[in-house]
């Protein structure tokens, strides 16, 4: 049996490098089989593998300018047998690189290795094996970790201002934040100081025409006196005094239940006759007979949600 010897340049249009290894004899006297080579672990794109040898040129790449090494006759014969019209459905699948021991990834290079490598190359046009990528590329979470981390401040920036504005608008609709009195009984509120002087029940409410006002059944009238101290006469303009009972119910001053009684206009600003920065005001409230005052609240719409709360007693 004679195997035709074909030189490598006949297979390529490019000049082949000088053959340094002796050609394998025609009669197969191959050395002992070497361990099967395995796919080395492929690093991510653009990153060289620290342990892998320099990557040789791709034999089957479209780059025809790469020189091909000379191959031995048996190997070429094997390659020719693959080029020949044989069924390719049984094209070998690449072995799992991760399943190979590390030592197997570095096969011993022998003189006959080029022949084995050439024989192992898939033929042009044959079904290409699936590239192995499992375990080589980082997962989705790892690749997007910085984007995910950046998502948190991005969401905070996107949602925070509108949430803050919505909460502030909601808070400003009602008095929710009491400003309480200090040890001296004064409350600093809206650029002024306020003190509760007294809260007393009025059994006789003055009416008009020198006649006392007849209180409705089931109602008690309470008179509240407040003292103010401020250098700005308009600091508490538009204030609304309220009386809170022990059940937490809120009553407004100068109620319709006391219409017909002679009550002063409720104001937290100094009257024209008032001299200096200290002045007082009086407010009347109507409460059910069963209710007991617990605190006086001073509301100012521009100060919401804050309000002054002065406990009774």
């Amino acid at each position: 049996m004679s195997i035709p010897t074909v030189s490598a340049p006949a297979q390529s249009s490019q000049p082949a490098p000088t053959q340094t290894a002796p050609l394998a004899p025609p009669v197969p006297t191959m050395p002992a089989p070497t361990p099967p080579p395995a796919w080395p672990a492929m690093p991510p794109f653009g990153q060289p593998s620290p342990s892998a040898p320099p990557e040789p040129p791709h034999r089957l790449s479209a780059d025809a300018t790469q020189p091909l090494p000379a191959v031995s006759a048996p190997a070429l014969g094997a390659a020719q047998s693959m080029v020949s019209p044989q069924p390719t459905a049984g094209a070998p699948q690449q072995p799992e690189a991760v399943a190979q021991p590390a030592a197997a990834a570095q096969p011993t290079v022998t003189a006959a290795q080029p022949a084995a490598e050439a024989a192992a190359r898939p033929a042009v046009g044959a079904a290409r094996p699936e590239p192995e990528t499992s375990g080589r590329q980082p997962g989705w979470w790892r690749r997007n970790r910085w984007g995910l981390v950046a998502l948190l401040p991005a969401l905070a920036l996107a949602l925070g201002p509108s949430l803050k504005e919505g909460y502030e608008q909601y808070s400003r609709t009602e008095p929710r934040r009491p400003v309480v009195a200090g040890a001296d009984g004064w409350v600093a509120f809206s650029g002024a100081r306020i003190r509760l002087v007294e809260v007393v029940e009025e059994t006789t409410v003055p009416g008009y025409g020198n006649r006392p006002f007849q209180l409705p059944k089931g109602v008690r009238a309470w008179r509240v006196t407040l003292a103010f101290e401020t250098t700005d006469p308009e600091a508490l303009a538009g204030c609304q005094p309220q009386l809170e009972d022990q059940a937490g119910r809120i009553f407004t001053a100068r109620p319709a239940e006391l219409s017909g009684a002679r009550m002063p206009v409720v104001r937290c600003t100094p009257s024209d006759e008032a001299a200096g920065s200290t002045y007082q005001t009086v407010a009347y409230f109507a409460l059910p007979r069963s209710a007991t005052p617990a605190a006086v609240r001073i509301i100012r719409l521009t100060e919401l949600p804050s309000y002054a709360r002065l406990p009774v007693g």
Partner: protein
Amino acid sequence: MNPSAQSGAPSPEYHPDPDAVASHRAPPGPVGRIGVRAGAGILVLAALAVGGAIANWRPINSGGTEQRERPFVQVGQVGETVSGRLFDATVLDVRGAAKVTSGGATHDTGGVWIVIRLRLTVHTEATSIGYAALRDRRDREYRATTRFDQRLVDSSRQLQPGIPVEGDVAFELPRDAATEVVVQLAKRAVDRRMDDLLEVPLPPVDRATVDKWAAEPTPVVLATPRVVAP
């Protein structure tokens, strides 16, 4: 004859060339990387645009907004107390008339006056009542008349917690609507979405009764609101 079979050399089927990569794409170059990042930026901008469009989408009564934001209706009967979130209401009496007198002035009508006696008590905070209406079988709404002051239900009187107040409220209706109506009460005069709405159906009357009311020459004097014992 296959030489590898003769020599016992490894078969190519089982020993593929580790360097023979079947196919892969080269890593993107500088221009390619800029393109990838620009694509990601365009996707982010597109996501923001879609989110903004959704956030600014304000359907006008689509998707059943009116049904979804309807008031919470509390129903009672004449003579019993109906309790809502802010106040209790009791319809004490119902009358019909051709004329009503309020504040010393008498007011007639081409239809008929329906006058109800109400008792209102607020719960925890001084509150005014701004909505009182009659709704007929055809879902037509007749607000408490504004031809004269009705301070009990026009938001002008603050009711104090725990102090019940009674008073008359007058409604002016066409005669064909007065036979079967429902009283509706709420705090807010305009926006009553997702708040309590107290309903008291009035006893139905026949058309002859309505015509009799409309022919009554004596006016009904409306009682001004007054505090009553709890």
